[in-house]
Structure formats: C-alpha cells, structure tokens
C-alpha cells in the first residue's frame, strides 16, 4: 500500500473503532471515575525529571507541588515519577531544597530536569 492509502485505511479503522452517537452516554457524561489515568500525558514531555536519591531528604515538597500527581510515593517515601503522566513542567525540580554541602554551602538538588532526547532514540 502507498503512504496515502495507508493513511486512509488507518483513519477508517480508527473511526470504525469509535462508538456511534447512540452508544455514547448523553452530554458527554463520563461514567468511569478517574479514567483520566488512561490518557498518557507523559507523551507531551520535552524535559524529564531525574531523581538523585542521595540528595533526597524526603521532604515531600515535590509531591506537594506536582500539578499532575506524578511523584510516586510508597510507604511514606518518594520512589520516583509516574512518567506516563509527568508533563515535564519542572516545578518539582524548582521546589526541591535538596541537600546543602556543609563546607561549600552548595545546594545539591535531588531532582534534575534532563532533555527527553537523552532517553529516546
């Protein structure tokens, strides 16, 4: 199949898979609670948060500030990020207090924003 035919076929298949008007709940009411989880907003990311565990003081500020509930916390400790939903806004890295070096007084954050390109082909 040429490129155009492939695109048309894909479009038709997609449309066929979608429900008709008679099968939809009225007014677009969403009956399945919390189904926003199924929408992978992580695809939108341009930079990605990387957790540097040695600098983490488990203050929970990143979890508090994250607008997408994308900081994973298990048993009261931060364990990483929900990359299916993290949009890479960088607020967590911005708010992270990290650890201060006693001698140099330098701040070492526990979250660093790294370009997505580094993780993708």
């Amino acid at each position: 199949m040429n490129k155009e035919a492939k695109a048309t076929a894909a479009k038709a298949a997609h449309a066929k898979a979608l429900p008709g008007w008679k099968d939809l709940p009225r007014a677009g009411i969403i009956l399945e609670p919390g189904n926003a989880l199924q929408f992978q907003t992580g695809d939108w990311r341009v930079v990605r948060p990387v957790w540097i565990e040695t600098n983490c003081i488990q203050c929970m500020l990143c979890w508090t500030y994250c607008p997408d509930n994308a900081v994973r916390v298990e048993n009261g400790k931060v364990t990483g990020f929900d990359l299916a939903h993290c949009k890479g806004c960088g607020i967590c890295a911005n708010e992270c207090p990290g650890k201060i070096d006693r001698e140099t007084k330098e701040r070492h954050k526990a979250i660093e924003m790294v370009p997505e390109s580094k993780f993708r082909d």
Partner: protein
Amino acid sequence: MKKTVAYTGNEAVAHGMKQLNPDVVAAYPITPQTEIVQIFSTFVADGLVDTEFITVESEHSAMSATIGAAAAGARAMTATSSAGLAFMHEVVYVAASMRLPIVMPVVNRALSAPINIHCDHSDTMGERDSGWIQLYAENAQEAYDNLLQAVRIAEHPDVLLPVMVCMDGFIISHALENVELNDDAFVKDFVGQYKPDHYLLDAENPLTMGPLDLFDFYFEHKRAQAEAMRNAKNVILQVGKEYGEKTGRSYGFYEKYQLDDAEVAIVVMGSTAGTVKAVVDDLRRQGQKVGLLKLRTFRPFPNEELAKELQHLKAVAVMDRADSFNGFGAPIFVQTRAALYDLAQRPKIVNYIYGLGGRDCDLSQIGQVYSDLQQLAQGDGTGEIVRYLGVRE
C-alpha cells in the same frame, strides 16, 4: 381545591414556582421579570418553600448557578428577560447541551439597542438555536399552565432538555387576569419528585459532567442532542393531554381558532393571539371565513403538523414580534414557509413584522392584515412578501 384568583402573569408564575417548590432558585433582577424572583423571595423568607435561594451578581451567574445545581441533582430554576437572557447566552447553550432539565420563565422584552423595556420576542428568538424547548403563552393562565407542564417535559427521560416558559413583557407579566390555580397537592403530584439518573452528588457513582470533546466526539454528542429535541414533540403532546384530562385545560403544539373551515388565517405567538381572536369573531359575524393558528411550541418547531393545518388555506399571514435582520423575513415566517415547501398545494404566505419594542398592535391593524389576506386570496401574486405592521414610514 382549585381557586380562581386575580393575578398578573408574574404573580401567577411566582405562585406556580411556589407550588413546584424547587430545590434551588438563582435570582437576578431585570425588568419586567424582577417580580417573579422578588415575589418568590417573599415565599422563601416566610418559610413557605424549601428552596435554596441564591442571589447572584449577574444573569450569567444565575444560569451558571442553576446549571451547577441541576448537575448536582437539584430541581433548579431561574428567570430572566431581554439583555439578561443575552448575558447568559453562552451558558444557556451549556444548559441544553449538558441535558439539564432546567425550567426558566422568560418575560419577553426587546433587546437593546436602543434600550427598551417593553415586549417583543427578540430575546428568546436570540436563543432559538440554543437547544432549549420554547413554549409561548397567550395569557397568565397559559404561562402558569406552561410552567407546570414544562417540568414534566424537561425531566422526561426521552428529553432531558431545559425549557423556556415565555410570556409577553408587561402585557402578560403585569396585567391582571383571572387565573385558575391548581391546588398545591395536585401540582406536587403532577410534577412528582425529581429523580435524576446521573448527578454529581451521587457519592456511590462518581462521575464527571461537562468535560472536553475533541473533533472525534463532539458531533456525536450533538446528534444525540438533536434527537432529544425530536423526542420532545411526542412528550409535549403526552404531557399536554394528561394536563388537560386532569385540569380541563389541554395543550398541544398550537391552538386552532376557527381554522378548519377558514380560507385565510394568521399564525402568531403570544398575547397578540388574544387580539386576533377578537378580530376573528368580529369578521366571522360579517361572514368572512377567517381563522387563527396560535403557535405555542416554537422549539421544537412542529414542521409537519403546521403544514397539515395550513395547507387548505388560500393565504396565510405569519406575524412575528421580532425581526431576524437576514434581509428577508422574520423567524416564525421563514420557518413556517419552509414547512410548506413540501406541500403539493400550498397557500400564499406573507410576513408581518409587528410590535417591536412594545409597539401596540390593535384590532384595526389586525383587521388590516385580514383585509390584505382576502385580497391575496382573490388576486394574483403575493405583492410584498415581508411587511412591517404599525411602523411609521
């Protein structure tokens, strides 16, 4: 026990609302509707209703609050006119597309500019594409009766659309008439309890209302909304018949007055129909075969039914108390004309735009319309298709 009282249209509607005892009423004033929410507020203050009365800062907020309450699962109402209706325009569409059974009295008043507080239908005509059902009353009795039926129509599971209960500003809203009120128990029983299947305050079944749609779903939701408006036709007839059986006052899409054997007729909505009836009586006494079709439901528009009722006539005049400024004809006219298109044999049809900004439309002017119609019926051609009645040239 029924009782006959002397009430203005606003009083009749306010008392009707008292009998409905809605869960929520959002209130904002505008002439000539203000008395509805004002009188209702005295019922709230006196503890005669259980309604949560929300005083908002604008009509946009009034409709927004009403939508929120209805979505939460409450029977919610508000009332407005003219610029107030225009101000809530964007959320008026939302009420219909969210399929919320809100009932709203609208006291018809001209839109600005120039500022005018008097009656014409430009305000509700501005909402004719909003997806709301629109019922028009000839008098205070009909306004009251329409209000009660509106709740049953709106909440019917095949419909679930909001309803505007329209009545002419000042002419109906402020004029005293004999109104037969149903008793409280009857109204309570007639409308029953509001039992929404989906509502936000249902903790057992959490859901989301009013989400985003992209190009892959919006059209399907709108198609479903269109179907609901089509379904409303049958429901309006059923409810009107039931109301008639129980109160002695039946309602349908329209009222025919001396129409079946008429040769010429007027189609009109609102209080002017009352004036037309007086002229019809007079002309009939003189042996003229004239009639009237008083339209009650403008939305949904009874396309096939109107065509059937009008097809035997030689000439029809559609009187519009609003102009559409489309360079041709006014709302009821263009829609009635389109309804006649499919008829093999169709009457001549002309438009009279009248009564804008409360301009009085009297017996002699209606008489002139019938006289024009008789000429049309006998002669060739139609002459001017769109005419203005009562304007100074």
